[in-house]
C-alpha cells in the first residue's frame, strides 16, 4: 500500500523568485523521501455535526441588516482522486475577499470598504458523489506588495483534506478570462501546462434561473495507487 506522490510536473515549486516571499521561505535542501506509514495514510475525519445551516452560503452566513453587496455567484464542483473516483464526505473550507477586494482579516490594510453583511468564510462536506456547492459573492481583485502595480486576480481560497494527510490540499480558484492572471506570480508559479486546472468554468448547469450565475471548479486530490486503505 502506498500513495501517489505529489506530481511535481503539476505542482508549483517551493522556490519561485517572481513570488518574492518564497525566497526566504522555501526549503533550500531537497525533500527527504519517506515510505508511507499509518501516520501518512490516515487523517482527520469530520462529520455533518460540524456543519451548520448556511455554512456553505456566504451570502447568508454573516448578515447584519441586509444582503451583502456584489455579484451573487454559485461555485460548485466535484472532488475526486487521480482516478476520478469521488471523495465523499470530505471537508471543504473556503475563504475570500468581499466584492470590493477587501478581507475581514485585521491585517488587511487595503483601502477598500468592508461589507457589514459579508464575512467571507464558509465550509461544507462533499456529498456521496464528491460534490460540493457554495453560494457567495464574486470576490474583487486587491493590490499586494510583491511588485509595482501588483494586483491579485479574483480568487477564492480552498482547503481540503481528502482521506489522509497526504491528500491535503490548499489552493485558489480563479475566474475565466481574468487579465490579471498573466501578471500574478502565485498563479504563474504553477507549471504553464497545468495552470488551467485552477481556472473555474462558467457553467449553465450550476447557474440558477433569476438568482446567480454558476462556476464549476472540480478538484483532484492525491489518491492511492491501489485498493482503498482498509483501516479507514
Amino acid at each position, binding site marked *: 500500500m502506498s500513495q501517489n506522490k505529489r506530481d511535481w510536473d503539476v505542482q*508549483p515549486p517551493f522556490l519561485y523568485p517572481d513570488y518574492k516571499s518564497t525566497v526566504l521561505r522555501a526549503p533550500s535542501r531537497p525533500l527527504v523521501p519517506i515510505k508511507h506509514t499509518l*501516520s501518512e495514510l*490516515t487523517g482527520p*475525519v469530520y462529520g455533518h455535526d460540524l456543519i451548520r445551516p448556511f455554512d456553505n452560503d456566504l451570502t447568508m452566513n454573516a448578515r447584519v441588516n441586509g444582503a451583502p453587496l456584489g455579484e451573487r455567484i454559485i461555485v460548485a464542483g466535484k472532488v475526486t482522486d487521480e482516478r476520478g473516483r469521488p471523495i465523499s464526505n470530505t471537508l471543504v473550507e473556503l475563504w475570500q475577499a468581499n466584492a470590493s477586494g477587501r478581507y*475581514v482579516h485585521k491585517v488587511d490594510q487595503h483601502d477598500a470598504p468592508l461589507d457589514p453583511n459579508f*464575512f467571507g468564510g464558509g465550509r461544507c462536506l462533499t456529498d456521496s458523489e464528491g460534490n460540493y456547492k457554495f453560494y457567495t459573492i464574486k470576490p474583487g481583485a486587491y493590490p499586494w506588495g510583491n511588485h509595482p502595480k501588483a494586483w491579485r486576480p479574483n480568487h477564492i481560497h480552498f*482547503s481540503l483534506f481528502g482521506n489522509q494527510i*497526504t491528500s491535503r490540499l490548499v489552493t485558489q480558484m480563479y475566474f475565466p478570462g481574468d487579465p490579471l492572471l498573466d501578471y500574478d506570480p502565485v498563479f504563474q508559479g504553477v507549471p504553464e501546462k497545468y495552470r488551467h486546472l485552477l481556472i473555474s468554468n462558467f457553467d449553465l448547469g450550476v447557474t440558477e434561473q433569476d438568482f446567480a450565475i454558476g462556476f464549476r471548479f472540480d478538484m483532484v486530490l492525491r489518491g492511492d495507487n491501489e485498493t482503498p486503505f482498509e483501516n479507514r
Partner: protein
Amino acid sequence: MSQDKFYQTPSQTVGPYFAYGLTPKQYLYNFPSIADGNLIINDEVSGERITISGQVYDGNGHLIPDAMIELWQADAEGNYSKDLSMFHGFGRLGTGTIKDSKFEFQTIKPGRVDGQAPHINVIVFMRGQLTHTYTRLYFSDETEANSQDPVLQSVEEDRRNTLLATKTIRPDGTTCYVFNIYMQGPNETVFFDV
C-alpha cells in the same frame, strides 16, 4: 467521466489572510473553528499531558508571524482515532496570536505507531509557500525508540536534531516540548517528500 488521468489540482499559497477562514476562533472571529490548539476534548482521556510550543523562522532568521501549523497524531495507545469525543488527533494554529509568533498546542504524548518512535506529523503552511511542507516531530527524551525509528534513521545524522522537540519543564511543573521550524539556514528543518 471519460478521462482516465485526472491531474492533481495544483497547490497555491494559503496567503496572509487565512485566519478567519481556517483558524477563526483563535483569531477572535465570529465563526467556529474545526480545530484549534487544544487536542484534548475530554479531560478523562488517558495519556501524558504535554505542550508543544515553537516558532517558525525564515531564511534571515526572522520569526514568521503568519504561518499556519497543523498537527496529526496518534493517541497515547498509538491509534489514529476517529472518535472525536475524547481526543482530536488533529490540531491547527496560526502563529499570529501569541507573543513572539509562537504556536502552543495542548495535547497528549502519542504512543508508538507500528513500531515507530512516538512522533507527530506536522504540516506547515504560509504566505511565500506555494505548496505546504511536511515534517515530523520526535521527542528528545525517547532516545531508545528514536534510535530504531526507520524514518528518523533515514535522515542524515547531522540533520536529525532538527526533528527533535526538546523537553522542558515549565515553572508550573508542566511538560513542554519545544519544536522550532527553520525554513532555511544551517538548522534547516528536514521536510519530507510525503
